[in-house]
């Protein structure tokens, strides 16, 4: 039986003809085995070309490195008879923090020679084999010393043939334990506080005859996890050890070592350590304990594993935290990181090491819970949290409930120990914010509702917008998705018509819809809170709306109206999706320079041309056909002008500016994506009632798609709406933003159905002519639809992540991807 750690680098060792390849084939998957012969073949077209060996091993090591980085067992099938060759493998294993294992196939030289002779491609002589055999003999004694953590020697054909591989889990692999856990921060001998905290968490203490707690039991079967630093500085380190050791022994707790346990063990083992940082207090307290207890403590500490991966890999506990590349790995530096963290090599003004801010760079999916660095309050940073709230220094003892992610603490009874550096005066790690590497380059995103790829060039374009124009990316928690129009209508004279919109949604498995008036203004996303802190209003592309002089007063008015709703929904802030009106407030120059300019030019040019034609006709020439054409054009230009004119209203500063909210997207720790549109619109109505001058109502009609009469009524409603200059309507699944079809897939959050006259400003004054309409009806909506759905999904996922308390880069990568989708080549008129 050969024990091999699940994640390791296995070196097969044996002379030519010892059966390494056969052994590898028998026991491992073909993709797990990297054979030097194969790589020689790749490089030199000849598996036996020894001149290609150096290059072949280079390539082999490269591939092995990629596999190990991905956490995959890798077997190297080469003779591995030279120590310098093996040293490369040891180095490779260490650089990926996996265990190197050697399996030696030791067959009699005669057997190997027989096999070699049977192979036509092996042309070397017997003396080569003899030399190899000599190397093997010499190697056998060196393997352990060279660094192989396990060495299995299979002697003779029988042992080789009878061998079986048994995979063993790493000590730190507790993925099959799901808790629930109560993870406790640095205790530092504060036994009383620990007892209080455990009590708060619902644990029942078990005491020995002397009344000392020696175990604790949770009635719901929870498991405690201690992040280390049980000892030193505090008043009763032995008491803490007694309790924790008891809990661990009883299977009620697991514990990782802290640097203080590490140092204590070294001292107890008679090593020379500095008696600083509270160690003397512990030694003094231990002196009062019987020797057996001290022996137990030593054994306990030596048995501790530096970190654990728990709960299907979703949770990692290590005393000083652990970066992603080290999780579930084993090496000296992994242990050292787990115990001490990483230091920059610099020291601060108190002579203490400056810590490298690994948490700021952390991008792993596992939550990392740790202690080690006293912080004033716990805070999730990129899915990591430090539970050391400096209890021994007079702070608090803190625990985290997992998977609830709930923080529970108990204040220190007093300052048990004076800190070297004033506690909490320097924040432990500066906030680095978002990292450029999170958004640049080609990105693949799996956002739950689907998958998307952001091409590098789209990301580059989005970075410019984000960098030059957008509001603070940390503030920008959502961007509105693009919206697809309904399928082209066959109704005479119409490109878009409600009947198509209803049919589209029905085809998607939706039976109840809300038709919402589509306001013609500028899309506005509003984040508003009770305190006003972090409030912002941004455009479709994430830009500040008008500038701080106008945005802030506008937000203040929204705040005033929304306050009761904040209280009612028990949220500190809300995110609103709205349209800001009139269109001219934000798009004034676009209207003047483009839309109205074209209108003015048309209204000047066509009458002048008609005048010429009239005079030509007056001379008896026939220009009637041309005249009719221009006459029609003239009336089309009038229609076009009327269309944009309807969206121009005088504003002066904020006077005349209104907001039409239609969805409440999210609040602190929650999203409202699952609320139906009745709920959303009811809140919008309350805002209108609270400040009718600021808020514009959204007219709507709820339609049951199985009821033809209701549909007909909605069509009439739409005709009236658009006849009066309205842009049109958006037809949405009534169930809400996160509406799904019968198979549980996200459906379009809405399709727009724009009015006949409105579309003149999109498709041109004359688009209603049959020849134009016929062409426009062929427009391809597929790309627009898939983009709309993708952006919608990414937006929802961003809100979900925000609600779950995901690190800001996880939210931002999705918002950024929505912005990047702006660069997709899609017809902007759709």
């Amino acid at each position, binding site marked *: 039986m050969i024990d091999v750690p699940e994640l390791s680098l296995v070196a097969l060792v044996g002379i030519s003809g010892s059966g390494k390849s056969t052994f590898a084939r028998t026991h491992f998957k073909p993709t797990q085995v990297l054979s030097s012969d194969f790589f020689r073949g790749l490089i030199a077209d000849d598996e036996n070309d020894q001149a290609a060996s150096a290059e072949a091993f280079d390539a082999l090591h490269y591939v092995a490195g990629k596999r190990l980085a991905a956490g995959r067992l890798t077997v190297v099938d080469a003779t591995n008879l030279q120590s310098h060759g093996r040293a490369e493998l040891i180095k490779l294993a260490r650089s990926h923090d996996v265990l190197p294992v050697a399996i030696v196939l030791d067959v009699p030289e005669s057997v190997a020679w027989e096999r070699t002779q049977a192979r036509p491609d092996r042309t070397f002589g017997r003396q080569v084999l003899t030399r190899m055999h000599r190397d093997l003999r010499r190697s056998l004694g060196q393997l352990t010393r060279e660094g192989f953590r396990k060495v299995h020697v299979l002697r003779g054909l029988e042992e080789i043939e009878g061998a079986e591989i048994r995979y063993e889990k790493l000590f730190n692999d507790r993925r099959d334990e799901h808790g629930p856990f109560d993870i406790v921060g640095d205790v530092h001998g504060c036994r009383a506080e620990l007892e209080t905290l455990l009590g708060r968490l619902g644990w029942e203490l078990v005491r020995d005859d002397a009344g000392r707690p020696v175990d604790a039991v949770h009635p719901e079967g929870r498991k405690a996890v201690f992040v280390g630093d049980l000892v030193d500085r505090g008043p009763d380190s032995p008491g803490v050890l007694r309790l924790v050791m008891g809990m661990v022994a009883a299977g009620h707790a697991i514990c990782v070592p802290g640097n203080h346990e590490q140092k204590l063990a070294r001292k107890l083992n008679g090593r020379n350590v500095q008696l600083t940082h509270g160690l003397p207090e512990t030694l003094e307290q231990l002196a009062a304990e019987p020797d057996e207890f001290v022996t137990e403590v030593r054994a306990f500490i030596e048995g501790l594993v530096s970190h654990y991966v728990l709960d299907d890999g979703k949770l990692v506990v290590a005393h000083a935290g652990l970066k992603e590349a080290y999780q579930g790995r084993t090496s000296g530096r992994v242990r050292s990181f787990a115990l001490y963290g990483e230091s920059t090599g610099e020291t*601060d003004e108190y002579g203490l090491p400056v810590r490298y801010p690994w948490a700021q760079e952390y991008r792993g999916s596992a939550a990392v819970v740790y202690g080690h660095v006293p912080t004033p309050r716990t805070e999730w940073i990129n899915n990591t949290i430090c539970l050391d709230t400096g209890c021994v220094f007079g702070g608090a003892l803190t625990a985290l409930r997992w998977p609830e992610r709930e923080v529970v603490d108990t204040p220190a009874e007093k300052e048990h120990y004076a800190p070297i550096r004033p506690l909490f005066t320097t924040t432990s790690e500066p906030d680095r914010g*978002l990292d*450029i590497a999170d958004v640049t380059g080609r990105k693949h995103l799996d956002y739950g509702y689907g998958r998307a790829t952001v091409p590098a060039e789209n990301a580059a374009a989005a970075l*410019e917008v984000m960098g*030059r124009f957008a509001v603070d990316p940390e503030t920008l928690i959502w961007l509105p998705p693009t919206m697809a129009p309904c399928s082209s209508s066959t109704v005479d004279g119409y490109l878009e018509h409600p009947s198509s919109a209803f049919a589209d949604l029905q085809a998607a498995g939706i039976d109840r819809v809300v038709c919402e008036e589509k306001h013609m203004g500028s899309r506005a996303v509003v984040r508003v809170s009770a305190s006003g802190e972090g409030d912002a209003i941004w455009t479709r592309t994430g830009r500040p709306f008008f500038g701080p002089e106008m945005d802030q007063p506008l937000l203040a008015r929204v705040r005033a109206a929304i306050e009761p709703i904040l209280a009612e929904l028990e949220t500190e802030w809300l995110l609103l999706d709205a349209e800001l009106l009139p269109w001219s407030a934000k798009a004034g120059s676009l209207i003047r320079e483009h839309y109205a300019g074209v209108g003015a030019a048309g209204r*000047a040019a066509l009458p002048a041309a008609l005048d010429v034609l009239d005079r030509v006709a007056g*001379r008896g020439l026939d220009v009637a056909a041309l005249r009719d054409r*221009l006459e029609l054009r003239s009336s089309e230009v009038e229609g076009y002008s009327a269309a944009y004119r309807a969206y121009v209203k005088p504003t002066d500063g904020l006077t005349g500016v209104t907001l039409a909210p239609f969805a409440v997207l999210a609040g602190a720790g929650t999203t409202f994506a699952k609320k139906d549109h009745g709920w959303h619109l009811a809140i919008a109505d309350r805002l209108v009632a609270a400040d009718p001058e600021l808020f514009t109502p959204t007219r709507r009609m709820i339609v049951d798609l199985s009821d033809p009469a209701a549909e007909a009524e909605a069509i009439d409603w739409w005709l009236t709406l658009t006849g009066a200059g309205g842009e049109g309507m958006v037809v949405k699944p009534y169930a809400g933003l996160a509406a799904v079809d019968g198979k549980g897939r996200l459906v379009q959050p809405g399709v727009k159905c724009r009015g006949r006259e409105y579309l003149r400003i999109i498709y041109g004054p004359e*688009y209603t002519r049959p020849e134009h309409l016929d*062409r426009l009806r062929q427009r391809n909506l597929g790309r627009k639809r898939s983009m709309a759905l993708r952006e919608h999904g990414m937006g929802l996922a961003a809100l979900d992540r925000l609600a779950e308390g995901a690190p800001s880069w996880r939210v931002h990568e999705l918002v950024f991807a929505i912005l990047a989708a702006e660069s997709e080549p899609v017809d902007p008129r759709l």
Partner: protein
Amino acid sequence: MLLTLTTTHRPATDLGYLLVKHPDRVHQFDMPTGTAYVMFPEATEQRCTAALLLDVDPRKLRARADAFELSQYVNDRPYAASSLLAGAISKVFRSAQRGTSKDRPELTEQAIPLEIRVPVLRGTSELVTRLFAPLGWAVTATPIPLEPEIGGDSRYVDLLLTGTVRLADAINHLYVLLPVLDDGKHYWVAPDEIEKLLRSGAGWLAGHPEKVLIARRYLAHRKSLATTALELLDADQPVTEEEAELPVARKAPLAGQRRDAVLAALAEVGATRVLDLGCGPGALLGALLKESRFTEIVGADVSARALEQAERRLRLDRMPQRQRDRIKLIQTALTYHDARLGGYDAAVLMEVIEHVDLPRLPALEAGVFGRARPGAVIVTTPNVEYNVHYEGLTGMRHSDHRFEWTRAEFATWADRVADRYGYTVSIRGVGDEDATTGAPTQLALFTKTETTTEVTA
């Protein structure tokens, strides 16, 4: 779009002979972008008017690429006089434009009284007058208003030209100046456009006071073509930098002075590894490359396009490897943490901060001074007090400037930043110093004093 040409030359109907169009017929021509018609709304002995009407088919225009995507479909091309109309003129009035006539050869040489009306033409009255008046036209350009609901004038005028001019000259004036005013050529401008310009401009363009503007715009702002055209146009007169369109007579040397000041500051702090943050198309990078003391040069910009321009301008693809290894171009945004920016001797922010929204400036400060923490930081920005010297300048010096500071404002900012992030700062002026307003550009040199850890905002 429409153009009418009227003469009161006696007999006025000779206009039909000159244009080779019978006044009693409606003439029709297929054009690549629609149909052109020539007809005569009046044709008497005393007064004869020819009208050229181009009926543009928007669908035929669709193939062309346009900066503003919507304008593919909704645009003024069917209504405003433009290069499309000029194209029609040269096709429909070809012999008249050349000054030839089978029937009235003597009349082609003669200046005749003419009235020309272009009802819708892009341009301001002022510019239209500047272009046509020097050619002997009395110009009436009436702005076309937008509409009462919106108010103000559109960018179009209704143009009426009157004068006594040779017909061929008049047609050539229109052929060249209509596209110049419209300033939106509908086709890709190739070098043979120079020939067309010179041919049509023969006899009047060389002496035109606005010839630089005309050549630039006619050649769709392709500078190299315009320069060639102007050189060919008049070998005697040296080509001057175009200043006609700029409200600000920018002193050309200022950019150079600024670059020199930055290089001097870099030398002062002994920097060899430098970051040019917001490098744009590489104005400073070229100067840095020329000095061998700079062993590592990083040009960083938020715009991928600017970096591509820099790569082309600096000819990185054909640079010798040893040189090439000294320079690196990276896209970054200073609002993000970027580990690649750490550890340099100096960072230059030349004319960068004024392009950042004031509320976002602290993020830039934290990125540069707090995280990248180079040994020195050099910041230049306009001194707004100096703007009074730019005649005709309204607002800021560049449309993307989010703010421009006085010397006091800049000093306050610099002191605050230096104080917060552990730097010392000294400020100097760049460019011609004026006693009351100071120099046009201000430069701050920050030097790091604290060498320990990162500092946060």
